[in-house]
């Protein structure tokens, strides 16, 4: 039995500890905001926060998250920080097809938790593990900078 916290609530998973965290989230807990883009830890679409750290859930076995605090996009978006990010992404035109976006928002959150006032270079580094094919990144970067300005005091 693997026990951990998922979006603030204690949960338990009683299955193969080698099952990918991504699959446990999507199939066993039914929360599908976290996406699979590559299955090899390269694209960042599966990003979640594990004890505040940005990780790729497609290459993490669920057995490795026992006792950890896992936050997915579903958990983030209902918080004040999450709402600020979601609004900024919408206002800033960050979204084209949308597939990379949950991962991008998680990466933005990981950045702002450490650095509430990032520079453009800081933002580009923070999302360098999240691949986007549609947007060319500029509007995503601007949206994250917008969130850090709008969200004064949130982080």
């Amino acid at each position, binding site marked *: 039995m693997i026990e951990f916290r998922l979006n603030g609530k204690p949960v338990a998973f009683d299955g193969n500890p080698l099952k990918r965290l991504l699959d446990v989230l999507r199939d066993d807990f039914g929360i599908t905001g976290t996406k699979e883009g590559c299955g090899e830890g390269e694209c960042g679409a599966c990003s979640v926060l594990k004890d505040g750290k940005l990780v790729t859930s497609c290459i993490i076995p669920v057995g490795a998250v026992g006792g950890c605090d896992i936050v997915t996009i579903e958990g983030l978006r209902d918080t004040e920080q999450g709402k600020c990010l979601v609004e900024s992404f919408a206002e800033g035109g960050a979204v*084209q097809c949308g597939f990379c976006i949950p991962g991008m928002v998680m990466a933005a959150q990981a950045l702002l938790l450490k650095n509430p006032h990032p520079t453009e270079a800081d933002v580009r580094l923070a999302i360098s593990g999240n691949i986007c094919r549609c947007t*060319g990144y500029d509007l995503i970067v601007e949206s994250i900078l917008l969130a850090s300005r709008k969200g004064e005091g949130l982080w």
Partner: protein
Amino acid sequence: VASTLEVGMDDVIFDAPNTDMVPDSGPTAASRSTMVVGNLGYRAALQMKEKMGEEHAEVEVQYEHPEGHPWDQSTFKGDAYLGYGWGAACVEVEVDKITNEVTVKGIWTSHDIGRPIDELIVHGQVNGGVMQSLGYAAMEKMENRKGHFRQSSMSDYVIPTSMDFPKQEYFFVDNPYPWGPFGAKGMGELVFNGADAAYVDAVERALGISCHKIPIPVEDIEGLRK
């Protein structure tokens, strides 16, 4: 439609497209839906606007082929394409002559797409297309050996990240197309063209070499210098 009728977007209801209901109207290509269907929607909304005071109104518009562009559907002869998008791209690079690493210092594009309907969305599309074009020029090596791709996973087919290219400068030329909704033409594929050639041209000029292939990833540049 919402914009022309001056109502909220939520007040406009449309059926999800269903091939049970609609006739075969040809391929979805070259943004013809934006121009043809968009313009039909616009013209219908203009007529509907006259009737906004009534309880209930129905409007139907037919496609009208623009004058001066003859097309014979039975012989497939004439002007097949009525509108063209145009663009220009400029790329500035710095090349390290010891390692051959290329740093893109600036990217500038301009496009004539008639008039953007939603500028924010189109801005994103330009950035995306230009980035894909630069990736194609700079890093997206894809080799085929006996029918198998040698680069077949995210780890080895390399596409740009947020750190590979700087923020882009772009602008749109305002040149409304008379038969597109609000003057719009298509732009989806257009934005891929140009930046790739500009990148290769810039590297050629920086090193005084000639490139006859694309991509020119860093590891291949030394070979081109010989």
